[in-house]
């Protein structure tokens, strides 16, 4: 209580005086350590009764739809696990903070969150992850980011959940070729957001093109460029046979609608973040039928039993929340955490170092097929290389139907991720 009052005073003190009053509080370090219940070693974020995980999400910024669904998925998992008796004799709790997709806000929130948690089960936003990279390493906080870029695998504290963007695109292009939609020697267009997300996707298409004698026509955009008419005009001029997107849903709509409007009409390949079911209500709806989505997690409407179960539970618990693949992705993020925590519990070490050790010993985390089995034993390598391929379907809930569950291209097996160590 004193601590709380002291902080409130410090809060006021930043604006004016009043700091003197605040000085009465103690500044003693209150982190406890040592043996806990059941002889399990613990440090931060774990007490005898509770394991606390952090969620750094976006509820008010540009990715609030995704953030809401992911957080919903995380919360469902906590509910399920706690109903089943918790992990290691402890109940789970989430500490959720909203950074609004702003790195400066996150930078301030992090030190407030860090002492309370064992690890992070959801971290939204490439700029946020980049800004916190050093903190996560310094504090040894294991983090499941809502970013699937293989560029971030050089951070040993990142726990990748599923396939990375580059592999999604490699698998996706292989699927298009398998279907006869593109052929060796073609020119393909790739519109990508400059940044961790888009750039990683581009790495995938460049790799695939190099294996199949294709030419990639690149177009770099920023996350707020929504009018792609001039770009698609240019791609049409270049005679592309397919367009790859690593873009936001809004940009996907523009690319699709111009693909139709300008009479280009080529197949378009995107990955998970490119699609949002809300697009089906936009003026671009009629032009979406050419879109294929290669994603590491199952679409919202996936027929995979666990995905159906999560979707139903999600709809029942959060009738107002946006329905997108974030729900399953959030759930699966936490499922992997569950595997890590259980392993660490077996090892008798629920410290931050302990969960790191536990993670590296996991070679096949199964998630009821929400994502392909995950292997965390190779540093820097994506834990899996399989994707779900889906196609836009007006009638499917969440707007996508699976056309190929867990598809892994031969080219994907041979691909070496940028920070892969073997």
């Amino acid at each position: 209580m004193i601590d709380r009052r002291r902080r409130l005073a410090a809060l006021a003190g930043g604006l004016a005086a009043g700091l003197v009053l605040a000085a009465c509080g103690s500044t003693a370090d209150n982190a406890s350590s040592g043996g806990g219940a059941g002889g399990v070693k613990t440090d931060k974020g774990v007490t005898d009764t509770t394991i606390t995980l952090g969620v750094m999400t976006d509820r008010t910024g540009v990715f609030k739809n995704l953030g809401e669904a992911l957080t919903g998925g995380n919360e469902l998992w906590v509910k399920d696990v706690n109903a089943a008796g918790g992990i290691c004799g402890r109940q789970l709790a989430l500490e959720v903070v909203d950074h609004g997709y702003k790195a400066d806000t996150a930078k301030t929130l992090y030190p407030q969150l860090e002492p309370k948690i064992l690890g992070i089960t959801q971290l939204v936003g490439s700029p946020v992850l980049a800004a916190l990279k050093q903190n996560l390493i310094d504090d040894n906080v294991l983090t499941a980011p809502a970013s699937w870029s293989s560029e971030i695998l050089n951070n040993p504290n990142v726990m990748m959940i599923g396939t990375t963007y580059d592999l999604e695109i490699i698998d996706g292009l292989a699927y298009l070729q398998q279907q006869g939609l593109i052929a060796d020697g073609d020119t393909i267009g790739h519109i990508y957001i400059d940044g961790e997300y888009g750039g990683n996707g581009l790495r995938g298409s460049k790799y695939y093109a190099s294996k199949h004698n294709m030419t990639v026509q690149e177009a770099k955009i920023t996350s707020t460029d929504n009018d792609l008419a001039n770009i698609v005009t240019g791609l049409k001029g270049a005679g592309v046979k397919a367009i790859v997107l690593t873009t936001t849903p809004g940009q996907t709509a523009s690319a699709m609608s111009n693909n139709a409007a300008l009479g280009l009409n080529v197949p378009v390949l995107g990955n998970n973040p490119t699609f949002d079911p809300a697009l089906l209500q936009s003026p671009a709806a009629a032009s979406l039928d050419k879109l294929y989505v290669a994603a590491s997690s199952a679409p919202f409407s996936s027929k995979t039993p666990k995905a159906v179960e999560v979707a139903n539970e999600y709809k029942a618990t959060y009738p107002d929340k946006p329905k997108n693949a974030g729900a399953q992705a959030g759930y699966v993020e936490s499922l992997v955490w569950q595997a890590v925590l259980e392993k660490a519990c077996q090892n008798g070490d629920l410290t931050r170092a302990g969960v790191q050790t536990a993670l590296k010993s996991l070679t096949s985390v199964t998630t009821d097929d929400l994502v392909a089995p995950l292997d965390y034993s190779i540093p820097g390598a994506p834990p899996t290389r399989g994707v779900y391929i889906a196609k836009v379907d007006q009638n499917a809930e969440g707007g996508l139907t699976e056309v190929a569950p867990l598809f892994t291209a031969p080219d994907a097996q041979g691909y070496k991720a940028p920070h892969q160590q073997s």
Partner: protein
Amino acid sequence: MNTFLQLVLNGLGKGAVYALLALGFVVIFKATEVVNFAHGSLVLIGGYMVYATKDALGWPAAAALGIVSAALAALLIERLLIAHARNADVNSLALLTIGVDVIITEEIVRRLRADIPFIGDPYDAQPLQAAGLTVFRTQLVALIVGIVLITAFFLAFRFSSWGVAMRAQAENREAAALMGIRSSRVTATAWLLAGALAGVAVLFMATQDFSGAGLGRGTHAIALIAFPAAILGGLDSTVGAVVGGLIVGLTEALSAQYVSFEFSKSAVFLVMLLILVIRPSGLFGTRELSRV
């Protein structure tokens, strides 16, 4: 060649909307020498009203309501704030509009929550194709509306009593006041018209064809791209607004293809910079902003 022609078409179509936006800046500047940084938020108000009422009222009535709302909002800003800040010079008033803009924009974005509504129902995403070229219907409608409105403005500036009064005021404030021209009415009318222009422009902006995005922060940002259009044409020139709008549209389209897409926004600003260094009051402008 087709690519080039298509780009020119894209550029001209977008330029028409930029011109409408730039005209909004120019009308207010001509009458009051104030640069209205809140134009983007007027755009949002108009768009928000259309979004909020089009399901209940139908699109045409909602569109009309949106235009009226944006106009009234502009009038309110002028009557409630600008008119009461009598001691402030025109530069301070421009800063005041920045404050207004921040407030309105944040509030509308909050009200939109997760929605990014498209509001160009009757014409959006219905392209016309001929001879291998595509004309976006939104931009065609915008072009026609733009030509009609801009012609009406030219006529009004020349011949209506308001236009005469406004030009007199633009020439010399004190003299106009002495001649009995009611300056506050001219000023209020200018704001009202600028608001209405913003309300019209947004009907084309929050579309798949024009911006590729629905109403939101991005719509507000487009008004910022129209700023160079108004400035490079000359803030006190109606012709300048039209030419400026088209230059911005074409610069954007052509540099996206022939330099690089990410350069296209910088290109717009660099063209503006170049023109300003050569002609500090813009292509058709007659006055520098602040006098010695």
